[in-house]
């Protein structure tokens, strides 16, 4: 056992040495894909450390999609329930869906008024998340949108509405792919867009109030039954990344994706550069990612400073738009001024600002959101 003991001792010594650094650590937990972790590690973290000597930013990825946000919620919830005096997450980046619950469960700090960029974000989504008021608790990191990605080598005339898309899928069976509702939000978003197109009262779905009768209405069931029919012509993909993956391998020609993920993959050379995007009418949902500060963050002042930096026009322009090709979280006019025209235009190559204004929808309010998912599950469970 001797060599093993020596190995063990060495390993422990190395572990101790590597953690023995006396500085303040700011823990940033982020849901979402690898690019979110990269954004903090490669860009925002070093910038913040330069401005605040003696601090170290530590990024922690919690996994893609709502599952990642849910883990942040569970972590904070566990600390709240055990009455921990100071929590170990200082800044969290979360999806829209969990934010309402984080606020109603009193897990977040109302920090927004304490930072100087507070007034730069005026979109509806910075006041309410899927119908739950979150004003004061959130600052948007960036805004994301779903759209249909397609391979122009195969698809010469991409559909521009759901109707045309349905037609196209019928003529090209199994060439349209999406990830259902259990494999990530891009598939969910496609389904929500479907309900806006064919279901009852798209406005009411997005703005509430919730009316249980609507979920039993004829239009609702009709839309669901049609979707089930449509599903016979599609290929199911394993997850958000799975859709891009299958596009990449030429197994499908078209599918719904997150615009930010699409651009990230493209920028890294991981996606066929000829791929294009199209936002189909009447519209598909998008959502912001929020910066939130937990109610008992150990470093709450530093956390506010961090969010202020992250939502400053300079960082939004340089980091979010220029480096990562994401739509800015704060209002566009503050960001556009910091950028040259070409960089700004690059954001809107495939999806124009006009498209975004008319076809970029929000997700349905919470109860409708859940009702749509559950109807979908029931449809597919009974085949």
């Amino acid at each position, binding site marked *: 056992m001797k060599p093993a003991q020596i190995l063990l001792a060495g390993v422990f010594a190395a572990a101790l040495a590597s953690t023995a650094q006396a500085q303040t650590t700011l823990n940033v937990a982020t849901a979402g894909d690898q690019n979110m972790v990269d954004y903090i590690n490669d860009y925002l973290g070093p910038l913040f450390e330069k401005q605040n000597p003696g601090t170290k930013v530590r990024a922690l990825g919690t996994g893609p999609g709502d599952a990642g*946000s849910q883990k942040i919620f569970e972590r904070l919830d566990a600390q709240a329930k055990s009455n921990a005096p100071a929590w170990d997450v200082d800044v969290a980046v979360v999806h829209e869906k969990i934010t309402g619950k984080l606020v109603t469960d009193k897990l977040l700090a109302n920090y927004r008024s304490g930072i100087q960029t507070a007034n730069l974000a005026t979109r509806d989504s910075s006041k309410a998340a899927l119908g739950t008021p979150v004003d004061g608790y959130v600052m948007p990191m960036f805004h994301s949108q779903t759209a249909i990605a397609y391979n122009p080598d195969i698809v010469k005339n991409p559909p521009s509405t759901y109707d045309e898309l349905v037609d196209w899928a019928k003529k090209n069976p199994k060439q349209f792919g999406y990830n259902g509702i259990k494999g990530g939000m891009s598939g969910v978003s496609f389904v929500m867009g479907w309900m806006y197109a064919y279901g009852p009262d798209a406005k009411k779905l997005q703005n509430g109030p919730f009316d249980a009768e609507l979920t039993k209405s004829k239009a609702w069931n009709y839309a669901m039954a049609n979707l089930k029919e449509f599903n016979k012509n599609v290929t199911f993909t394993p997850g958000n990344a799975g859709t891009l993956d299958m596009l990449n391998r030429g197994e499908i020609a078209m599918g719904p994706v997150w615009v930010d993920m699409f651009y990230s993959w493209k920028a890294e050379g991981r996606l066929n550069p000829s791929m294009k995007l199209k936002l189909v009418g009447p519209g598909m949902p998008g959502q912001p990612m929020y910066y939130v500060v937990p109610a008992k963050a150990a470093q709450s002042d530093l956390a506010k400073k961090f969010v202020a930096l992250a939502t400053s026009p300079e960082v939004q322009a340089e980091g979010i738009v220029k480096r990562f090709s994401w739509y800015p979280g704060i209002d566009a006019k503050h960001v556009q001024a910091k950028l040259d025209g070409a960089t700004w235009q690059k954001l809107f190559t495939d999806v124009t600002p006009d498209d975004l204004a008319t076809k970029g929808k929000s997700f349905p309010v919470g109860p409708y959101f859940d009702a749509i998912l559950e109807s979908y599950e029931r449809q597919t469970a009974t085949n």
Partner: protein
Amino acid sequence: MNQRALGPILVAPALAMVVLFFVYPLAYSLISAFWSPEGWGWANFIKAYELYRNDIVFTVLIIALSTALVGVFSIAIGGYLVLGENPRSVAILKWLYRWPLFIPFVVAGQVMRTFLAKNGMLNNTLVGLELIEPVSAVSLLDWRGIVITFVWKQTPFVALLVAGAMASLDRSMIEAARNLGASRLRILLEIIVPQVRASLTVGLTLSFVTMMSVLSVPLMINAQTPTTITANMAFRINSYGDYGVANALGVISILLTSGVAWLYLRQASKDKSRAIA
């Protein structure tokens, strides 16, 4: 020391660990399986049955199939390792079969996703060797993909246990049978396998249980419905924040696995009493 006290004393530390750090926190989850907005009752189980009964059957079927295949391949590998006559082949096999053991499930899922896809490496290789036509290439990213990934990942685990047990068998009986002219397949199935049954069933039971609780593989490979119980649990939690139904599914899962484990344990204790008697 008193013989009767010694057993419980030796088991106590390990048992305390599991009870304190898992069973106790688990109790909260079990309780929440019976709690729904309407109050205490079976509501979560009813919903789980309504929405996920296909998925439950699907899960049991594919995992049973995977377990069976793992068993067959492990016996074949172990058998060749003890009975193979070409030392070089035995050495190669011994070196070969263990590798997937070291690949975490999440990576196995990711690797298989690009390997088994319609235009993935497997089909590309087959097309390249002109074994199949490009048009007849099919995607295996459905239940078959899950089974392939599970078998790929779990066979080395069971084979390692089985081969270890086979290697420590008394060889005189094998030699005797061989001298009587018995075929190697018969020796394997009639002499060796019965003697290593304990290791084999431990391995298969543990494999079954492990596969039942893996989430990453079905999430990354299976795009279709039905899907596995774990994928649905994750969906209940992540999409609805609904721990009630998720925990109800967890209870169903633990009942299924305990059932299988119980079969094994009953068998094992029968063997034990026979050995003592």
